[in-house]
């Protein structure tokens, strides 16, 4: 639950009094123009940045608690992988940090799932962009998180990575996982979302269930609540 979150950079208000309740098992599309504050909000929800005011709580406890961080999977703008390490070494590293049993086995299972098992010993710096993105997706899902926070997940993905991500998101949703994703790509986001939140200049201007009207006319939300 995001309770009255504001974030100031100096005197500039990046977020103003955001109040958002995310129901377990829902998929929330966080929409808004460039600079609206989507990434800032996602970073605060992920515990990567502190809010100037307000709190983010999961089941009533602070998001920065280790037990909550274990429940969150984050995929940001960067791939968050080490170029000098191999694909397996990267996943084993994060499996160890999350305290997962048998890190090697878990890493190999996810490499197979994302179609990277043939290059498991290759260094990430030698990977193509698509392979790096698929490995980043594997890293985000590695510890089977209950809450998935994705910032522009479809941007710059190749077809294969999009297919992998879409199938994993569908599986996560079917498995009762909660998903919050920010995106510009309205059509893709609205197709998988159960709820929509629209941010405009740091303020939450709409929050509610996704309706058929939004799907039929993707511009409707922006025309009604946003600034064209």
């Amino acid at each position: 639950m995001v309770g009255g979150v504001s974030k100031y950079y100096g005197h500039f208000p990046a977020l103003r009094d955001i109040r958002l309740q995310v129901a377990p098992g829902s998929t929330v599309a966080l929409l808004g123009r460039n600079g609206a504050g989507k990434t800032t909000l996602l970073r605060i929800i992920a515990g990567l940045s502190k809010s100037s005011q307000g709190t983010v709580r999961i089941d009533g406890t602070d998001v920065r608690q280790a037990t909550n961080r274990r429940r969150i999977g984050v995929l940001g703008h960067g791939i968050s992988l080490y170029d000098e390490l191999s694909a397996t070494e990267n996943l084993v590293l994060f499996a160890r940090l999350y305290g997962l049993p048998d890190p090697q086995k878990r890493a190999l299972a996810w490499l197979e799932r994302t179609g990277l098992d043939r290059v498991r010993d290759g260094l990430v710096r030698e990977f193509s962009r698509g392979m790096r993105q698929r490995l980043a997706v594997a890293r985000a899902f590695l510890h089977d998180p209950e809450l998935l926070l994705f910032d522009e997940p479809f941007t710059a993905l190749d077809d294969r990575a999009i297919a992998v991500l879409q199938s994993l998101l569908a599986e996560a949703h079917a498995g009762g996982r909660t998903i919050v994703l920010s995106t510009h790509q309205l059509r893709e986001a609205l197709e998988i979302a159960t709820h929509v939140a629209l941010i405009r200049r740091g303020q939450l201007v709409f929050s509610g269930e996704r309706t058929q009207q939004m799907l039929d006319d993707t511009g409707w939300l922006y025309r009604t609540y946003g600034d064209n």
Partner: protein
Amino acid sequence: MPSFLRASLTIAAKDLRSEFRTKEAFNASFAFSVVILLLFSFAFDPSSEQLRDISGGLLWLVFSFAGALSLNRSFARELQNDCLDALVSSPAPTGALFLGKALANYVLLLIVEMASLLVFALFYDVRFAKQLGPLLLVILLGTRGMTVIGTMFSALTVNLRMRELMLPTLVYPLMIPALMAAMTLTTDLIAGTPLGPENLIWLRLLAGFDVIYTALAVVFIDIVLVG
């Protein structure tokens, strides 16, 4: 193994593995050390008594400059691909992340220092075999303090555009007590004076410095990394 220790060792192993593959920090630090030692050997007569008086200062000057070069890279390497976000969002305590990075820096800097010490002995014809044990103890303690403060400020300055300049500017003033202790002890030991009641106070200062700054860094690192 407790999860805190396991996370620290995981991070240390990751940093060392990355460094051994690229050798970026080692090459830069060691090359810099050799150049400084070489230049000073031209400036001073390597066989003079005067050199023995400044040997501790010279060695720690080299160690601290070399340290600044490698410590600058410590958190900066986490910026590539936004890796720092993945570390901070993991359940590993930020204190464990810090100690792991400090441990990797410690090992790396010790390797550079040992190599530089050999070069120093060669260029300046210094014999310290009799005092090797105490000298290593001083290097271990002095380097520990340097890596703890350096790693902390590497995290603090990681998002600054002028971080290469900011790190030494912030670290050296804080390092003055530890550097004074390390320089005095090193000069004494190279001159053949063993550790005794006269200079033991400096060794205690070094140990105390390490303990205090390690504790402070572990307490404040979460504020530095998350805000």
